[in-house]
């Protein structure tokens, strides 16, 4: 039951419970003897009944009864009446046990077990449940069992929906009822049962939950349901391609390692000593099954018939939002500048399936032009400076559009009702914007609205308000400051990437190396990275002087070769784990962070630890210096997989001669460490 204050037990209660314990102990030991000797006599079964009626938590006794039931059923064979009477006795014991403690897992489970034997009438079960749910309408055991019985009896989901209606009308502060409602509606909507079409039902549900939220904004149950509804409004079932690199209609210059003299200003130049360029597919939800079977490449570039697509995710799972393949462009014989068209097609044959089981069903293709140059001459390893050599992107340049267009976003979705629902929600929650949860909900709704807007004219109008709401929340509710801060960063990055115009303010060309495309998001107090799907083309990223804790999200930026993370709040190398996927990364600046404070990232639920890295294969470093590997395991695992030429680590607790020498062992190819050539 809820809302009952706990009382200190009185001495006489304690005496009673002690007496009960003595009795229980003797019962229990007698019972265990029966159980071990597999005695299923009437007397033995009655003893277990007694035990369970006093203590329904005795799970062993429930299991014993299951064995006893099986035993007696095997003996009487097929007399339906005796079968029924045996099972009815079990139901009676469960009912008594539930009267004792109606949150007993064992008792509910036993009841399910008896019912699934299929000999008992299910008619009584709903009546019994009504009784229990009257006592405590929120008890989730009863609700779980209810779902089980409903499934068994083929009671219609509409009837059950009506039942949640009644329960909510009695007292809307009932998480279980709202939850069951969401379960039932999901199923009814998915199966398109009569009249259950999202564009009709979802607005109705909003109307119902408004009544709860406005009546008592301090009650959380309605808000949870609202959050679920919002997800139903925004989320689309079938996965879609959010963006790709190269994007449709773009041109890229591909060359070998080194510096290409006179590389044009308006086209991305990509250099690689391996002679392959990443193709990036970015989906709106995690998908699996991306392969050369489901994605076809038409190109004159040889040797790309069976491209290997890799999911980019920190978990070793086979689903991810981001998939990468490496397109080979340098064929052994030297060639003159040549132009190739590359056409990428996906969705024509089934196989790309979201983690929730929906097919990528809208075929899509994109075409880009690759200019392949011969290997460049100049391969001097110059230090990359973050202070000069930048030239602002020309805001008028049309090339930016071709870099940053989103591809399949919102294609073929019934946007109209979704937008209408979100708009009316926004209007509604402006009225509640004096409460914290009201502000948060409004901010979320405005974000959802921005995500759905396709009209470039009005796109971005909400961001100022969203940012202001999160600023207010940070001031009002300090205990959730970090969450609001993160959401503020997300909104800010959405704003930056919402149009070419706003993005161009942060975009530069770095003259030092082939006019790298550089995005400078420094000094913006960002605590989280977002909108990466619109930044796949970025080759150089300046995130210095922010409040970042981790590089999560950057793994999609497969072209990234220079990254500045100095003056942030990174606490260990595990926080840089996602960079292991960025094979192009040559320059990394993590100076002036908090690396060395904690080698385990305790701020995350699923954090990396020495035990989570299974790849403890022996290499030279481990053989020569096992002590240092153990000490700096987090740095070892990240740096080992990177291809760094330049690393800045100064200004961290970990920094020092010992660590520097360790770094040089792990990354022997390093050219610049903390601004100096090692060995000098």
């Amino acid at each position, binding site marked *: 039951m809820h809302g009952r204050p706990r009382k200190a037990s009185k001495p006489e209660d304690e005496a009673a419970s002690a007496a009960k314990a003595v009795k229980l102990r003797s019962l229990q030991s007698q019972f265990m003897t029966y159980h071990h000797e597999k005695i299923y006599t009437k007397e033995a079964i009655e003893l277990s009944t007694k035990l369970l009626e006093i203590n329904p938590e005795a799970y062993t006794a429930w299991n014993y009864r299951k064995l006893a039931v099986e035993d007696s059923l095997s003996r009487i064979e097929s007399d339906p009446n005796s079968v029924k009477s045996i099972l009815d006795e079990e139901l009676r014991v469960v009912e008594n046990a539930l009267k004792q403690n109606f949150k007993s897992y064992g008792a509910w489970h036993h009841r399910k077990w008896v019912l699934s034997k299929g000999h008992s009438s299910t008619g009584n079960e709903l009546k019994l449940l009504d009784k229990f749910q009257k006592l405590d309408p929120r008890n989730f055991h009863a609700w779980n069992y209810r779902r089980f019985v409903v499934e068994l009896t083929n009671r219609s989901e509409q009837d059950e929906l009506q039942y949640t209606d009644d329960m909510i009308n009695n007292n809307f502060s009932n998480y279980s009822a709202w939850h069951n409602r969401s379960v039932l509606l999901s199923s009814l909507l998915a199966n398109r049962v009569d009249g259950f079409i999202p564009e009709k039902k979802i607005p109705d549900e909003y109307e119902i939950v*408004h*009544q709860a939220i*406005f*009546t008592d904004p301090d009650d959380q149950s309605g808000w949870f349901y609202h959050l679920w509804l919002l997800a139903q409004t925004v989320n689309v079932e079938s996965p879609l391609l959010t963006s790709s690199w190269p994007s449709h209609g773009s041109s890229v210059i591909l060359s070998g390692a080194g510096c290409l003299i006179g590389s044009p200003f308006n086209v991305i130049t990509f250099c690689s000593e391996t002679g392959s360029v990443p193709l990036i597919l970015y989906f709106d939800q995690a998908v699996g099954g991306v392969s050369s079977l489901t994605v076809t490449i038409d190109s004159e570039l040889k040797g790309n018939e069976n491209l290997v697509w890799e999911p980019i995710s920190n978990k070793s799972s086979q689903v991810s939002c981001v998939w990468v393949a490496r397109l080979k462009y340098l064929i052994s014989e030297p060639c003159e500048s040549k132009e190739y068209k590359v056409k990428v097609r996906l969705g024509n044959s089934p196989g790309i399936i979201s983690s929730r089981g929906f097919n990528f069903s809208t075929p899509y293709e994109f075409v880009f032009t690759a200019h392949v140059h011969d290997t460049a001459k100049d391969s001097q390893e110059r230090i990359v400076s973050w202070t000069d050599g930048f030239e602002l992107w020309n805001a008028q340049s049309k090339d930016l559009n071709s870099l940053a267009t989103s591809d399949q976003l919102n294609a073929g979705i019934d946007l109209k009702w979704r937008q209408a629902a979100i708009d009316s929600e926004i209007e509604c929650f402006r009225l509640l914007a004096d409460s914290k949860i009201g502000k948060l909900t409004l901010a979320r709704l405005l974000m959802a609205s921005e995500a759905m807007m396709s009209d470039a004219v009005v796109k971005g109008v909400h961001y100022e308000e969203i940012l202001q709401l999160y600023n207010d929340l940070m001031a009002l509710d300090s205990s959730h400051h970090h969450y609001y801060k993160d959401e503020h960063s997300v909104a800010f990055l959405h704003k930056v990437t919402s149009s070419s115009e706003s993005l161009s303010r942060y975009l530069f060309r770095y003259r030092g190396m082939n006019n790298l495309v550089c995005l400078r998001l420094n000094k913006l107090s960002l605590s989280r990275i977002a909108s990466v799907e619109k930044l796949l083309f970025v080759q150089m990223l300046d995130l210095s002087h922010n409040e970042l804790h981790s590089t999560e999200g950057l793994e999609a930026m497969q072209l990234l070769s220079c990254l500045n993370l100095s003056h942030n709040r990174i606490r260990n190398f595990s926080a840089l784990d996602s960079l292991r996927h960025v094979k192009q990364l040559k320059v990394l600046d993590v100076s002036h962070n908090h690396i060395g404070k904690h080698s385990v990232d305790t701020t995350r639920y699923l954090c990396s630890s020495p035990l989570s890295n299974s790849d403890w294969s022996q290499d030279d470093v481990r053989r020569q210096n096992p002590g240092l590997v153990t000490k700096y395991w987090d740095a070892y695992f990240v740096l080992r997989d990177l291809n760094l030429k330049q690393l800045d680590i100064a200004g961290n607790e970990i920094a020092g001669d010992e660590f520097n020498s360790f770094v040089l062992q792990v990354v022997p190819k390093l050219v610049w460490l903390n601004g100096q050539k090692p060995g000098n």
Partner: protein
Amino acid sequence: MIDLPPYPPLDPSNYYLIVVGTGVSESVSAAAASSSGSSVLHLDPNPFYGSHFASLSLPDLTSFLHSNSVSPHPPPPSSPPILPSNSHELISVDLVHRSLYSSVEISSFDSEILEEHSRRFNVDLCGPRVVFCADESINLMLKSGANNYVEFKSIDASFVGDSSGELRNVPDSRAAIFKSKSLTLLEKNLLMKFFKLVQSQLAESDDTTTTTVKISEEDMESPFVDFLAKMRLPPNIKSIILYAIAMLDYDQDNMETCRHLLKTKEGIDRLALYIKSMGRFSNALGALIYPIYGQGELPQAFCRRAAVKGCIYVLRMPITALLLDKETGDYKGVRLASGQEIFSQKLILDPCINVGLESLSSLTDQQNETLRVLVPKAMINKEKIARGICVIRGSVKSDISNALIVYPPKSLFPEQLTAIRVLQLGSGVAVCPADMHVLYFSILCENDDQGIKALLSAMSNLIRLPVPESDSSVENDTCEAKPLLLWRALYVQELVKGEFGGTISSMPSADGSLNYKETVESAVKLYEQIMGSEELFKEEETSLENTTEENEGGVEIEEN
């Protein structure tokens, strides 16, 4: 009146307390006194229990109202008012009957049907009246054990009405606010916030350690209506709170006509009673309950309790005179209509019993002082209550049987100065046959015409009057949905206050409120004055026998 059958003389003829009249106040006093061990004789001139709180059949109600109304007032007895008693030390002072009712008008529109069912009605004299679950009367019943003799049912719903005829649910609880269709989202929000404020205010008074938001002292002294405005509550919600939850009578927005401008403190107290009532009994649907078989069950329950404790009951026994000591003027006893003289130390009388002004002139000052409370006073406060009873076929709201409807001041017509309350009751509480309902109406008024006019206006808002065949077609369409009137009573009742007079005290008449809070509180106060500051029913053990199992929506009240 009724021909009295000859009575055997009462034995004993000496009591500590004689109580005349079996209304709620008198019955509570009789039960309390007999519980504390005093010898009590409880008399009533009527053949039924309850006096002005009785529930009667239609013919009995008709004859009671007629015999207690002003117009057919019998002339004062011709015999000399003061006679020597049988005993020579005493004188007797004749009593006169005071009529509480005026403008009584009873009309039947379908005598045949009503006669057929005439004994199946239990119609209240003091309606509309309900019991609040947290009401003092319930506490007294629990304390005295009188709860064993009454069973209640919930009032299903309460509504606010207006001249359009539309009845809107009163959003009086969290669930009701959630379900309400007439409130906007913002109104729901503001109203719930206000309820929470009231609740935290209540919690404060119970528990001093919590530091919740509290209403300031200054606000507590300000008019309640101003405080509601300060809480940004819109007019429609203000009106619901004032008239349908706090159950006020006078228009709080009109300084000229408002006889009682409620302070915030009092307003919070009234809401507190309502809120506490909502949650008191788990098997009650809302704040209000009604006794099965009518309000007459309540005084009767106290009488039965008193009888169990040794109180002697005689019905159909008027008293005709008081006996006073010749020398000291002290009260000694009463003379019954049977002629027998009975003696007691204390006397409690029904508000209808007075001494004639002409008899006072020949009395000594001491004798006059003893009879002080029985002297009819010129009414300073001309406040009266107009009541109406209608028997209808059907219900004013489909699917709902027992319901309270409030028409706030000015909601029916511009000159409506006070709130009109309407209570519909059905066969579920055993007051009428199955397909009918009894409706009670009341309004405070300054004169009979004003009151009757308002009642008729409310009636026509809810009920279809039987129209002669000739012009029935005109309004048929609009009235089709309204239930049809079968029987109607209209009457205006005086509001008489109770008075403590030492050995002789007079109890108040049925008051103008919806519940028994004030009636019982004043009865308790009077009783304590009469008996000394003894606590009522203090030693009573309440029976906690649980009989709530399966009584089809009945509300058993019990201590929890």
